[in-house]
């Protein structure tokens, strides 16, 4: 399911898009919570001679199996209904779900255009235990669609960290009016 999202993305990637994504992938890779957990787990496993606290053992155990949900949103997220705000990919989405506005999880509704730029989330998939990088690309050119509206804020940052901010109208360079209609949530890679 997940890798096919990339193949099916019906969008032309501009050079700017690719460059932005590359930068953001590196950024998110460095700051991934799973990466931090893995390093912590590795540290715990590497010092077995020390008298380990119960919490360290738990950490080591979790990395040997599946990573535990890293955030409260992830702990309650579901993987079946992409028209609901608690769908796992929506961990940092703010706005209208395109999947309820005539579009899809990575598709814009007819009459709108996808933004080549986006803000980025790192969301945990409880089904496979992996975290993925999610590009929240806005669909633009019509006013707000207002079917299902969500405000999720995992790792969301103020506008001085624009790549992690969900207040910005990400409709730069769409060739439309830059009027916001809804948001998609495309998988763009595995985090960590």
């Amino acid at each position, binding site marked *: 399911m997940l890798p096919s999202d990339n193949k099916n993305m019906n969008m032309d990637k501009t050079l700017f898009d690719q460059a932005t994504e590359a930068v953001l992938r590196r950024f998110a890779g460095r700051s991934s919570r799973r990466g931090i957990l893995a390093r912590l787990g590795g540290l715990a496993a590497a010092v077995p001679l020390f008298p380990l606290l119960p919490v360290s053992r738990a950490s080591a155990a979790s990395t040997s199996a599946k990573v535990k949900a890293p955030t409260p949103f992830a702990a309650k997220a579901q993987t079946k209904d992409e028209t609901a705000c608690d769908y796992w990919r929506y961990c940092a989405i703010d706005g209208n779900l395109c999947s309820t506005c005539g579009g899809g999880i990575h598709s814009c509704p007819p009459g709108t255009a996808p933004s080549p730029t986006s803000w980025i989330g790192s969301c945990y998939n409880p089904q496979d235990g992996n975290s993925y990088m999610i590009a929240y690309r806005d669909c633009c050119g019509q*006013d707000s669609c207002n079917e299902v509206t969500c*405000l999720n*804020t995992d790792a969301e940052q103020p506008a*001085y960290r624009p790549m992690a901010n969900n207040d910005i109208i990400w*409709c730069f360079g769409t060739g439309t009016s830059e009027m916001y209609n809804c948001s998609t949530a495309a998988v763009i890679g595995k985090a960590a």
Partner: protein
Amino acid sequence: MVSLGGSALAADPVLQTEQSDVVTLKPYTPHTILVMDSAGTHAKDGRVYVVDADRGALLGMVQAAYNPNVTMVPDASRFYVGETTWAHGNRGARYDLLAEYDARTLKLTSDEELPARALITPKRNSLTLNVGATRAYVYQMSPSNGVEVVDTHAHKVTQSVDLPGCALTYPWGTSGFSSLCADGTLANVSLSEDGKASMTHSAVFFAPDKDAVFENSPSVAKTGEAYFLSYTGNIYPAHLGANATVEAPWSLQVGAGMKPASDASAPFEVTWRPGGIQLIALHQSDHELYVLMHRGTFWTHKEDGTEVWVYDAQTHKRLRRIPLKKTSNMVGVTQDDHPLMFTTDTDGDLFIYDAQTGHLLRTVKKLGTSVTFTIAPGEE
């Protein structure tokens, strides 16, 4: 019955003919406020309302299209609306505008076209004024982060200042502003008359990944004081200026007799935390901070407040705790000796409280669609 009715009608004087006219508002009182309604569900129809908060009455309104902003001069004689329109509604040529209104007639006194303005959920610090209101600072993001400095008398952009890695403006004095930066510093921009700008950076004072500070934090241009509130509930008092300094933080939770809240490294801890959009307000002369609070985990920094906690910014102690009738993502306060406090809900209602007793005085039902923030005279 018929004859009685007939005589009663006959006793009434004949109505006089009338001339149509237009109301001019009285000078604003400390309780005459501007209310920003960004109309999020139909964002090209945003507006700014003028409300008499003592009566809960709408006095007038102006349009404020598409993720707009508004700022008012301290004597409440005029205000500025930053807005964006397109020639054919949702298409055609784009216009980024700075409209100036006479606050009593609501007549447009200038309609300046800007090179750009940032399209972002309305936040007060994307449009600010210097002391004296001779300059307006317009935050923009295209082609890159920067600030357009507008001469409010000549109605012209006189300078554009690049802000690499930083955002928004927290003005100080007549010719400077600070901005919050991605590396956890403040950038401090000094403007000179020759159109040049110089910039310094403060020391790093917060860690954005671990505990970011809210961009909706309050500041006062004439004194340079600012209170940067972090996601966990730490307040960083700052003294803005060409070489801004930031004091060690104090904790809202500790000021209320609790232990400090966890940051992003322990996100599951449930405790009282700050949250909302315009989630903090300052009563300048009383040095009181009004903060929307809710119970939640870390990463719930935009969750509505269920209560407002009022703090003495000098002693760092909680003074009052005001439960809200409806949860709110916005809190505002007037600047007089008998201040009113404002909150909203998802129905666009405006709730008006006595800020000192916490009593709900009146409600303006369905004032708007998405009440985003209020501005009281003397607040900016």
